């Protein structure tokens, strides 16, 4: 669906952040983008939405070349949720904030209203319609940002570190929302440093490192690598994987919940 071919990029012409970046994203995937700080995780997503321009390479969406398409056009199929959600909000109420996208696309008033109602409902913030965004809690702001991206009716949603700064409850609820959106058919790209999330939530991990794509495969394959190999990429094993190694008979566990239930089952002899 979204195809990236031989992308090369550097903020300064002589210094590449990465090169030879090639991957394809299919509809409905749930992809974690990881790697150590400064490896270009955020940059690669900024390239996808057109906020940066690649010095080489091409990008295609459903076969159409979008390499030189401006972000305002790409917004119709890729939604972007920035790392600090409050930096991307600029309107006095949640409803008008969310309406900004469809309004810019020139939708009619009634259509805008329908879209806003629908996405506020989907993201569970219909009760906050008239609230002033900066006064919301962090988790709510994150939802407003997601609703704003969904209002563009895009098929792909990119989120940059959405769980940083959120407390445990907010993180859990956010992950549940993303899971639900993914089940509704939205492709999700999640930039994250959190190994637990990468292992338990995502179906695929795309790790940037050594100035290119250093790993592209399932989280299970990734976390079965040795600790040293992972460390080279700026990653660690999530606790569930680490602990499942202590009890080899359990096999790979993608989350603590899975570890616990396998363990209990085994100990109870089931």
């Amino acid at each position, binding site marked *: 669906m979204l195809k990236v071919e031989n992308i090369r990029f550097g903020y300064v012409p002589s210094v590449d952040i990465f090169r030879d970046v090639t991957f394809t994203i299919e509809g409905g995937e749930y992809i974690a983008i990881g790697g150590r700080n400064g490896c270009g995780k955020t940059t690669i997503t900024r390239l996808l939405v057109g906020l940066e321009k690649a010095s080489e390479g091409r990008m295609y969406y459903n076969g159409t070349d979008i390499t030189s398409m401006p972000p305002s056009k790409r917004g119709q199929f890729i939604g972007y949720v920035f790392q600090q959600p409050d930096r991307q909000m600029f309107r006095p109420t949640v409803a008008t904030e969310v309406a900004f996208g469809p309004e810019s696309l020139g939708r009619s008033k009634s259509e805008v209203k329908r879209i806003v109602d629908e996405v506020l409902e989907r993201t569970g913030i219909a009760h906050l319609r008239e609230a002033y965004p900066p006064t919301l809690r962090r988790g709510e702001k994150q939802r407003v940002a997601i609703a704003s991206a969904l209002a563009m009716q895009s098929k792909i949603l990119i989120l940059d570190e959405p769980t940083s700064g959120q407390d*445990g409850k907010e993180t859990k609820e956010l992950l549940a929302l993303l899971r639900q959106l993914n089940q509704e058919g939205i492709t999700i790209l999640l930039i994250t440093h959190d190994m637990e999330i990468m292992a338990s939530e995502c179906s695929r991990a795309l790790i940037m490192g050594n100035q290119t794509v250093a790993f592209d495969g399932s989280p299970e394959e990734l976390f079965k690598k040795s600790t040293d190999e992972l460390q080279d990429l700026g990653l660690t094993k999530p606790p569930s994987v680490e602990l499942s190694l202590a009890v080899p008979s359990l096999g790979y566990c993608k989350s*603590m919940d899975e570890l*616990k239930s396998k363990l209990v089952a085994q100990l109870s002899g089931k």
Partner: protein
Amino acid sequence: MERIQDLVYTHVQGGQFRWVTVSTLMLALGTILHLVSPSVAGVTPNWTIATYCVAILLTRPSLSQTLGIGLVAALINVLTSKSAFPYGNLLSEPGGALTAALVTRAMLSMKFRKIGGFDLTPIVSGFLATVVSGGIFVTLLWQVLGLPNNVYMYGMWPLVLIVGALNGAITPILYIPAQRLFSKRGMLPSADQLTSDHSHMTILPERQAKISIEHVNYYHPKATTPSLENINLDVHDGDFLVVTGPAGCGKSTLCMAMVGAVPKFYGGRLEGMVFVDGKATTQMEIPELANHIGVVLADYDTQLVTMTVREEVAFAMENRGYDRETIKARSEEVFKQVGLVGLEDRKITSLSGGQRQRLAIASVLATNPTVLVLDEPTSSLDPDGTAELYRLVGDLNQKHGITVVVIDHDLHAVLPYANRMALMVDGSIACDADVPTTLRYMYEHNIHVDALPSVFTTYMELEQAGFHSDEPWLSIESAIKGLHQIEMAHAIQNEVHGESKSPANQSNTVENKQPIQRVDDVQGKDGGAHA
């Protein structure tokens, strides 16, 4: 001597430097608005004048402060190379600022100030300040450069009036939302609150501690329900205390009470007393208290106010009049402590989030406080940055003997360093004990459980299912140990019972396991401690 339960202290809201910070930030805003301003046939509003008009309208500084604000505006214009004629600005901006202040004062007492409920003050002051400022500027230009009179009269003055009109239009656009925000937060100048005076009293703490919070209730200005309720909490020398709790439980307010900002900055009413090193906080000014306790605010970015890393660390020392050699020596020391050596001459805006956080800590440590308070230090750091930050803070606690109080909702990374944890719920302390006890309390009472590290939650869930470990799982290492123990116990049990396990008794194997673990021991150690 006073009974601590009977003490009441009220304070007006807002510190003494609001006019400084509002003007500073407004002028910074004016500078960037100018850079990106759209123009009508080359004429743009003068954003600098508009922004200082707003600052003056909001904070009503004295006339000499107003002149200073004008001077600052001029210096900023000169330094950002916006000024083609620097001397002109140095006179015209103070003139404009003074006009804005005088108009604001004059209009306060006028009848026709409002038309249909709409306040005309921002329009009038925006227009007149711009005309006066522009007038001074072009007159100087005309005189110094000997420009022809017709250019001055028919070229320059009309331009001044047009820009004045534009500013008359944009000043209310900036002022009205700002004014709304100020009145919503109770930040507009008002005289209906009182400040108590405790200086004549003898107030002694009931308990000896580094910080002792005794019988404290606290009400925010105009609030009828307390934000802090019957708080009794001590922080001892060398402690690493974590205060946690759900959003809005009052943990940040508690932290602000330790440094005197509650109620001396936030205003409101304090009952009971907070003591720092045995002295009542109501008998000390905030800067004096800050000599004992260093605070890194949640929005640490805004705490940084200078251009370079070196200046930031020198800032608090300069304010206290340290001499040059001491500043130099102390700076080098704290740069080493927080690991910023080599970055001294970097601009603050070029630092990463984690580095800025370290710098905020360094600048607080510079004046040698014995306690370091961090309010939600990790809320904008990634997991790596969080781990690194707590490594640093743990180090300061263990190697440098600094007492640490951390307010955080993310517990995972701080656990290895903390020796105590307090849980707050709805303004009260629900549990104050060692780390495993408080974590267990949270789990068992279903309070803020999502903040528990997943490893600890698994430990509790396994325990509930009947599988015990000797030590609570606070880290991967202790969890692995615990897992091996459980496995071992399981193996022993299998041996004792032989391989006689039949499908029939599988359903009650969970109960079967219980005698093998030392249940009473585990619960005796961790259980009742918080009661």
